[in-house]
């Protein structure tokens, strides 16, 4: 995060130092489990976490000295009669200095650029070699619908995934554009009507991870939260079986109810019409795009 304003100014200086310390306290990794971005639970979130830290550290390498120089300069060259510091009103150019401060940012951007490109490409590939699970996601007004094409079960605002296995979320929307975000597992991808988007996530440890819609969609937007429960593969499979056994089926009529703007709680469905997901994509313009899962 870099250093805050450290200007030399008596009492308010102390105040600012206090505030800075205060903010830093909240930022220290691990000091609270609520800093979900600093507590990645899978390889995707881990890559993104490292990228965030790298950019911050490299920016701080420039920012902190700049602020230090500023404090020093303002202190040393104040316009006071007794100030003995040199005064060179016509000195306005230095090739060497110019080369240095064009050079430093170029160098830093070059380093960051390399890592950024590397990570950007790597994030489009599955995070591990395990056989992946596919889950289709539809954002609605104002709820999240999940389909498991491999086992034909469906859920609302609740999704279970096996740990240690890459999960390919295939996302679309049957409502205004939203964004699918599970901070502890990895970053977002927009859900858009008629488009199929792909997002690889993986949980390496069991747990309950909060997910949310991150792109504004109107009145009920603030309530578009869902839970991601990661558990070992065997438990996950047992859960799928229990849903198939005990939950009601999702019919087209029921889905048409769900599409209407409303806020929903967790729901489970033992089956859904097999063409439902494809129909959702196509009715909103899916025919204009070639879609491809599993790269």
């Amino acid at each position, binding site marked *: 995060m870099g250093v805050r304003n450290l200007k030399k100014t008596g009492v308010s200086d102390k105040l600012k130092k206090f505030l800075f310390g205060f903010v830093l306290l909240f930022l220290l990794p691990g000091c609270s489990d609520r800093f979900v971005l600093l507590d990645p639970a899978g390889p995707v979130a881990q890559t993104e976490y490292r990228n965030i830290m790298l950019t911050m550290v490299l920016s701080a390498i420039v920012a902190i000295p700049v602020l230090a120089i500023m404090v020093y300069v303002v202190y040393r060259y104040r316009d006071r009669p007794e100030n003995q510091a040199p005064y060179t009103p016509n000195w306005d150019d230095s090739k060497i200095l110019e080369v240095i401060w064009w050079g430093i940012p170029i160098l830093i951007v070059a380093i960051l650029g390399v890592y950024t490109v590397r990570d950007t490409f790597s994030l489009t590939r599955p995070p591990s070699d395990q056989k992946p699970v596919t889950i289709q996601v539809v954002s609605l007004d104002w709820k999240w619908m999940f389909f498991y094409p491999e086992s034909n079960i469906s859920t609302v605002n609740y999704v279970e995934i096996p740990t240690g296995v890459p999960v390919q979320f295939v996302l679309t929307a049957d409502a205004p554009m939203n964004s699918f975000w599970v901070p502890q597992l990895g970053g977002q991808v927009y859900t858009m009507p008629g*488009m*199929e988007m792909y997002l690889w996530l993986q949980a390496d440890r069991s747990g309950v991870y909060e997910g949310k819609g991150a792109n504004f969609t109107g009145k009920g937007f603030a309530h578009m939260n869902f839970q991601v429960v990661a558990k070992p593969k065997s438990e996950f499979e047992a859960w799928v079986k229990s849903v198939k056994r005990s939950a009601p089926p999702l019919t087209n009529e029921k889905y048409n109810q769900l599409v209407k703007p409303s806020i929903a709680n967790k729901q489970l469905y033992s089956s859904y019409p097999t063409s439902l997901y494809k129909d959702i994509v196509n009715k909103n313009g899916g025919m*204009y*795009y*070639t879609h*491809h899962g599993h790269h």
Partner: protein
Amino acid sequence: MGDDFYSRVSDGGDGMKTKEPLSGKYTGFPWGHVIGYMGSILLTLVALWLAVNPPFSQGGIITILLVLAVLQILIQLIFFMHITESRGPAFHTLAIVLGFLFTFAVVAGSIWIMTFNSQVQ
């Protein structure tokens, strides 16, 4: 454009015809315009012929069509809009060049961004 022309108009309107033109092309037959017109008609016909009877692959044809269009635009800019003429710094040329750069950025950029995983044809 037409900067040198201005100096003649504004240095006293009545002296216009008697004053020596700054370059010969302003008097007599408008060769530049005729050449530009012929060129643009020719380019249009060639483009149409290529589009109707494509002699090879579509991608290649589209590239050629775009090249022909750029030539046409250059004809308009040079023979009719006289973009190359100016006295003093050619700020207007700079502006138009920037305009074309950003035009390219908007069109090519949008296609690159928006047609990812979309059906182009």
